């Protein structure tokens, strides 16, 4: 009977992985990605402009009882929140801080409160003064869009499921109300 040959296993055997093909792929891939990469990420904020005055009037006539929220961004004083509910106006002012900048934290707080009392409203009208900077307008829109406090959510009725869900969105629809003014 032939004796089986004993296989000797060397547990300390080392080998070198050939990385050259992998490197070749990477060298080709990196320039492609470098060219097509966006190092500055840009997003958009959607707004509607009042195109035809007649359409706006018709819409207003249909929604006579709807709550209307307007943010008047004043150049000197701050942000004025005007809530028109059942034909009655309630006005609240969020004054500027001592350093002359807008108090966005306080504005967010007040808008959360307005949203709590009017969960069915998702649209606001924005009326900035002529001298207000674009940066401040975008900041005000940001504060109005969604709640920064993750614990604060607002109820929304989902017609598809017939159930109430929660959302952190407050007023995502923004319309520049004074575009057509002279």
């Amino acid at each position, binding site marked *: 009977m032939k004796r089986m040959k004993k296989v000797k296993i060397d547990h300390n055997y080392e080998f*070198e992985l050939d*990385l*050259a093909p*992998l*490197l070749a792929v*990477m*060298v080709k*891939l*990196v320039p492609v*990605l*470098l060219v*097509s*990469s*966006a*190092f*500055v*990420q*840009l*997003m*958009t*904020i*959607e*707004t*509607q*402009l*009042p*195109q035809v005055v007649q359409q706006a009037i018709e819409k207003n006539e249909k929604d006579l009882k709807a709550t209307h929220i307007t943010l008047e*961004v004043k150049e000197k004083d701050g942000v004025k929140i005007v809530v028109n509910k059942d034909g009655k106006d309630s006005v609240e002012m969020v004054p500027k801080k001592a350093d002359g900048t807008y108090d966005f934290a306080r504005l967010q707080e007040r808008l959360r409160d307005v949203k709590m009392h009017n969960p069915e409203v998702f649209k606001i009208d924005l009326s*900035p*003064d*002529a*001298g*207000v*900077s*674009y*940066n401040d*307008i*975008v*900041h005000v*829109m*940001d504060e109005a*869009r*969604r709640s920064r406090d993750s614990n604060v959510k607002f109820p929304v009725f989902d017609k598809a499921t017939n159930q109430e869900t929660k959302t952190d969105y407050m007023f995502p629809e923004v319309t*520049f109300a*004074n*575009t*057509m003014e*002279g």
Partner: protein
Amino acid sequence: MRRRYELPKQKSTFGLNITSMTDMFTILLVFLLQTYSTSDVEIIPEKDMRLPASSSSTNPVESIKLVVSKELVKIDKTKIAEMKNSDFEAKDIDPNDTNFILPLFNELDKIAKDEKLKDNPAVKEGRILLQADSALPYSVLRKVMYTASMAGFPQLKLVTLVGE
């Protein structure tokens, strides 16, 4: 005379250690894949223009690209008007309507009536992608919005940088 010693000629090879280079490329690849743009729309920010930062997460859609910087107004790559002290020059404003920018209206009107662009959804739905300098006052933007709206472009999308 001392004889010069010569090394025997022999073929020599050496293995280049590329492990560290592969490491570096792997890190670079992951970073580039993260920053890879998946948006269909290519927006090239104007030189010396600061866009406002926003927490908005809506990706840009194909629209007419309008740029309003401190120096000029552009549609795509076409210069429409020049700005002076962050405002429009008097010659570009309609004397009967101070919010109406004549060259901007003419250009947008031309796009709206262009037979080649009549099936373009951006033109059909009147969409504008507005890149404006964050330092510009609202009075300038209002004029642009008013004119765009008059030319049949009521859907305005404000381009912002990602951030707070």
